[in-house]
């Protein structure tokens, strides 16, 4: 074998490469078809005006982007999007963390509780949203029913522009809770027992144990959750569509929902503006993720 002539090595390497490409091909095809092409098409559409049917009609360059920058409505949309991320990611991650830490206590029925808290994961966004619309219903809703028992006035959960975003965010937090609990439970499960035991032998328990040992060791899981929840929040659509349609008075019109409205809702087929907004959304998602990797990840302790 060592005397094998060098030329034979070339075809072998080519064959190896060929095999690698063959294995990669399916995912490359999928990526090109469902990521690269739509992205390119979005960029193309964002630089074109539309005819009546939404087909690109003429090149307008940066016009759609310039219009967005000048639009007060779009600034509102960005602010709403930022608030929605804040109202869903922070309580979603902290709430799941609190639950998971409480579940570490060896109480009866803890397995049942763990399953119960993970259950929202099993609901689709659409069906969970319909259930929440029943809770929030202004006339016959469960929440206003409870409030009236307490002789408190009805709240326009989804019809009052002051509360609508909070209500949609609360529903979203619940929907994400199951996934967050699952991820953090797995994270806690992977913390080596000897570390926790050593800490316990040193007398740490309860909050002290959580603050100094469990939470720092959960760092990678928490970081993962923050990144994923942020991207999820930026892409939330179903609950807004079912509960508020972006209203009232645009109070729940996030970036994704605005894209939908411009492209498809109310007989509109302004794919140019919608595509420009979609590009802005892409930039926002990239920026958020880059920021999180740049700032948060440094503080994450990988055990």
């Amino acid at each position, binding site marked *: 074998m060592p005397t094998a002539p060098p030329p034979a090595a070339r075809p072998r390497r080519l064959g190896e490469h060929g095999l690698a490409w063959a294995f990669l091909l399916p995912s490359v095809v999928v990526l090109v078809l469902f990521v690269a092409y739509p992205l390119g098409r979005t960029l193309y559409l964002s630089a074109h005006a539309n005819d*009546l049917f939404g087909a690109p009609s003429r090149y307008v360059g940066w016009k759609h982007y310039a219009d967005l920058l000048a639009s007060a409505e779009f600034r509102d949309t960005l602010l709403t999007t930022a608030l929605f991320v804040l109202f869903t990611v922070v309580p979603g991650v902290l709430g799941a963390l609190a639950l998971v830490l409480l579940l570490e206590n060896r109480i009866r029925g803890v397995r049942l509780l763990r399953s119960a808290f993970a259950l929202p994961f099993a609901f689709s966004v659409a069906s969970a949203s319909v259930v929440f619309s029943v809770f929030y219903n202004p006339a016959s809703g469960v929440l206003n029913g409870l409030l009236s028992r307490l002789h408190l006035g009805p709240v326009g959960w989804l*019809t009052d522009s002051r509360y609508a975003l909070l209500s949609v965010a609360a529903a979203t937090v619940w929907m994400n809770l199951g996934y967050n609990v699952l991820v953090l439970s797995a994270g806690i499960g992977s913390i080596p027992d000897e570390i926790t035991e050593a800490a316990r032998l040193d007398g740490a328990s309860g909050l002290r144990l959580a603050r100094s040992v469990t939470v720092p060791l959960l760092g990678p899981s928490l970081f993962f959750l923050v990144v994923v929840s942020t991207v999820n929040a930026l892409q939330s659509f179903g609950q807004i569509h079912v509960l508020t349609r972006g209203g009232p008075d645009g109070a729940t019109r996030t970036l994704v929902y605005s894209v939908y409205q411009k492209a498809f809702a109310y007989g509109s087929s302004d794919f140019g503006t919608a595509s420009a907004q979609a590009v802005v959304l892409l930039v926002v998602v990239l920026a958020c993720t880059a920021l999180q990797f740049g700032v948060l990840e440094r503080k994450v302790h990988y055990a």
Partner: protein
Amino acid sequence: MKKSARALAALLVSGLALTACSSGGSGSGGSGSDAAAPAASALDQASGVTTVEFWHSMTGKNAEALTALVDAFNAAHRGKIEVKPVFQGSYDDLVAKYKASVQQKATPALVQVYDIGTRFMIDSGQTVPAQAFADRDGYPLDDLQPNIRNYYSVGGRLASMPFNSSVPLLYLNTDAFAEAGLDPAKPPATLAELGDLARKLTKKDGSGQTVRYGFGAAVYGWFVEELLAESGSLYCDADNGRTGKASKVAFDSAKGAEIVQWWADLVKGGYAANTGWQTTDAQAAFKAGTVAMHLESTGVLRGYTEAAKFTVGTAPFPRTAAGDQGGPVIGGASLWISGPGHSAAQQRAAWELEKFLTAPDQQAAWHTGTGYFPVNTKALDVAADQQWVAKYPQFKTAIDQMAATKPTPATAGCLLGVMPQARKGVETAVEQTVSGAKSAQQALADAAKELQPAIDAYNSAVG
């Protein structure tokens, strides 16, 4: 005429609708009435079964009633015509899909489009006006209810065939009236009277909780459109887009502000329930008895009488003031026949279905099965229809109201390419006024301003 004659000749020879015909429909910017309809012989000469794909947005009971009618049509034309109804989601969803189908040159032969999509459908250049078929056949359109015909006509020519029409009504909880010592036989006729009665009908319990609101309606722009029409005001320029292409909206008038402010004041005063944009939520509130007076279309009447534990009363849609000379605008949807890309036989088959669906017997079946207002006046003479009206005497209000409404530009309603967005803008204005963010005048002015670029872009795209 020359162009249409030539196109017609081509159709007859080839039996195919040439896509070139679309230039006749869209270029003029008029009603598209110069698009030609093929002769009846096209269908007779067609070999085999002519299939008609029919896109619609009907759900539940309405879908069942539609399927039954289409099945009856197919049975009567077995071996010759087969209509395939395809549900395409909400009216908005359907229009979005229809636009995609135009881009892909794969439009359905027949499509049901909501009232506010009428201008868009005319401008699309994809359709052959119902009037063209009627003219060619000498088919009389006089049995169509005049106000319904008025809505779907431009320059006196019928653009599409009305099918499911709704008429707005004022609904009353007569038990609440009796409890408050009021006579439901004397319903409020104006907004001022409605406001006064709403105050009297609002009921609070011992702890100050409102257990019944005097008034409640969905934040639905249609109701504002209706009230403007009642007052005889226009919603957009060019006589509501009837004498030319509308270039701006007119709802930001003193009358518009008066209407929106009236609504918002009732909500802010605690006399009207704000159940938001969902019409089903507003309907649920009325059925549950937590709202005493309520605006809705005739389409929900049957559901109300079946579900409500009180006697449901109806009254004519309110006027904005005693001297109002207008009347309500009809809502609902109409049927459009596709020209480009469809054979002459297909177009004729679609027209046959339109005539069938709007004939007295079918409209009577449709009316009694769904609650939509019959588009054919003769349907009200059909025995089955008269029995239905006897069973739901509240419907008489709608019949009388329609008969009393004179077809004018105001009661025809506004034809605007971006009408769905205009309606949405008014809804946002109502929400802003209710929340106190803006005065009604300011909110409507802002809505009109925000809408202007969309109107300009639409009109320049149509050319």
